[in-house]
């Protein structure tokens, strides 16, 4: 076998591998990519129930309520345009509190409410859901 041939075969193999990986990635992306919505995006365009999506916004002040079982909560996510009621069963992340940003992963119900199976807290306490960071520029203030 000449080096040239070997190189060609290797290149072909690499190409097949890359194409295979790309195909794999695309097919997985179809099922797995969770689209991100803010409550305001849903006005007049509801997301089909049962599809796994992310919902981001601010936890509305005074909206967090505990259920009787002690481990389920209900709260309302808003973005200044619209609000969505969310229910979640589990221990909330450390950075989850009222009037701060949250990203909930889960599914919409037929009645328009949202059942979260995961609440995201970012590594960064200055994290804001993307749509909200535009009008509230985060600045570092120091006590004089």
């Amino acid at each position, binding site marked *: *076998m*000449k*080096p*040239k041939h*070997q*190189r060609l075969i*290797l290149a072909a*193999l*690499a190409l097949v*591998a*890359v194409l*295979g*990986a*790309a195909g*794999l*990635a695309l097919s*997985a*992306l179809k*099922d*797995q*990519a*969770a*689209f*991100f*919505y803010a409550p305001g995006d849903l006005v007049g365009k509801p997301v089909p129930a049962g599809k796994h999506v*992310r919902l981001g916004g601010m936890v509305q002040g005074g909206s967090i309520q*505990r259920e009787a*079982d*002690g*481990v389920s909560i209900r709260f309302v996510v808003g973005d200044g345009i619209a609000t969505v009621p969310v229910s979640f*069963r*589990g*221990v*909330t*992340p*450390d*950075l989850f509190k009222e009037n701060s940003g949250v990203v909930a*992963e889960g599914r919409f119900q037929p009645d328009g409410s949202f059942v979260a199976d995961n609440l995201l807290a*970012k*590594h*960064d*306490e*200055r*994290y*804001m859901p*993307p749509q909200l*960071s*535009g009008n509230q*520029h*985060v600045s*570092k203030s*120091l*006590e*004089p």
Partner: protein
Amino acid sequence: MIAEAGLAALWLAAAFALIQLALGIGVARGGSEELMLALRRITLVQGLLAMAAFGLLIALFVNSDMSVLLVATNSHSAKPLLYKIAGAWGNHEGSMLLWVTVLAVAGAGVALFERRLAGKTLAATLGAQAFIGLGFYAFLAFASNPFTRLNPPARDGQGLNPLLQDPGLAFHPPTLYFGYVGLSVAFSFAVGALLMRDVGPAFARAMRPWVLAAWIFLTIGITAGSYWAYYELGWGGWWFWDPVENASLMPWLAATALLHSVTVLATRDGLRAWTLMLALVAFAMSMIGTFLVRSGILVSVHAFAVDPTRGTFILALLGIYIGGALALFGARVGTVTQGATFRIVSREGALVLNNLLLTVILGLVFIGTLYPLVAQAMGVQLSIGAPFFDKTIAPIALVLVLATAAGPLLNWRRDVLNTLLGKLLVPVALGGMGFALLFMMNPTAPMLPLLGIGFAIFLGVASVLPLVRRKLRRTPLHIWGMVIAHLGVAVSIGGMGADAAFKAERLTAIEVGQSATVGPFRIVLSDVRPALGPNWSAVEARLTVTREGGTAFELRPQQRFFSTPPTNTSEAAITTMLDGQLYTVLGAGDAEGRWQLRLWWKPFVTLIWLGGALIALGGLLALIGRVRRERRAAEAEEYA
């Protein structure tokens, strides 16, 4: 004064980097011995100056000098000393200074210890290293100066994010940076070799220790980071496929591929162009990782667009270095003469397969990490979570396990397939039996994790086969290193499979005196009381745990409250046993006097990090073995 001295040291180091670049070009074009000596010394001084600048920054943090902006925004006088020091790199500017310091010190290390390379290639390498350094010095001086003064000084600082106040995390960034920047040496080597048209076994042997060292640091950094995320975030998970995690995984994948291809180049003089390409890609991945984590682009593309100076600067550096290196590669790859060819059934063949699969995995992680960012820039919001990565990468990883098991059992040049299958008979039988047993005992458990355990048993047995029929005392260290590292991969995969297949999770809210069960444990909430630390206060639960037929012991998970900056964190309480970990998290209390508890029983989960430690240990043994061998060879040459 310290801040000004630090800034002066930084500028001086940059000046020396410029001289180093000029000298490197001069020597590579045919300079004298004296110039070469000067180049080595200049490189050394540049490393020392960068270290001085970083040392002065640490001094500012230790003194809590609130007239320095960086200290005021990232530290607090009441912090424990360790976290004052760690605060120096727990922020953007400080970590970039650490980055460039490691870069300069790595260059100094090459100048000090590298005796095997041809003088001109070494000069070109040091020049390339200086060229990378210059870009980052410029970035520090113009876009993110760590020594900026604050006038008037703050009364006290804003503190360090409490999540980062943890011994594991204090050393996590430096370790990763040693790995990232160690790959810059491989990059510079590749650039030097391309410029001087000097690619061959000698070059590979010179590059290998650096790649190994960088890879060891990356392995340790990723393992430690994973464990930190596991016990500090209180989510019970050990890998979230978070972009920040992927940013460190991508260089590791590239470095793992490079480590194996460099061996082919050193031993058989094959894969010349491919190895050069990988060296360029590995450091490119390090820089992309740095860009992702340090530019703020992950928080949101929008935030990045609001304050784009830094991000754009790093992006420009990325473009210059990676684009330039790839252009050089494209221009010179034709002059890299063909190395030797290989047969499919041979150790080389297995290593090529290893490289192919690692590259594909790297490509998948790359797409999964960057696709959401690109989509976001186009105005579509989407996220790619763990299911995508699990689905696409797990099958490829299992094929990679097959190559890992087979490779070390094959001869370098050629081998017979039937011999290999004969050798693998025992591991295949054991792995298959393990899988079948587990499946019969737990027909409801998810399939892929069980398969993973089966493959782990197979690889674990196969990885020690190279030691069979060898005199163990006379086995070279690098063989031991390979065996232990591959065993580590098996152990780690076994832990991942066991955790995914058999973990038990329990979420409940109980009053003091009530109990809950998880896995084989009965847990009584015996008390909840306040607790106090140096810069936090906490609510602490006392959990009395009994295992079926065992003695009781106590666990104390906490909810901690930090005042600077105001945050609360959950401190999980974890107990480690021979067959797994019990993981307990205290949640919030409610008006009825109930406390939320989150309980996990995670069988054999510790194997994940034990495997990581074994992989790093294997790398270390290989590194020691290789370096000693080179030394002996060099001495033998002198006497000859």
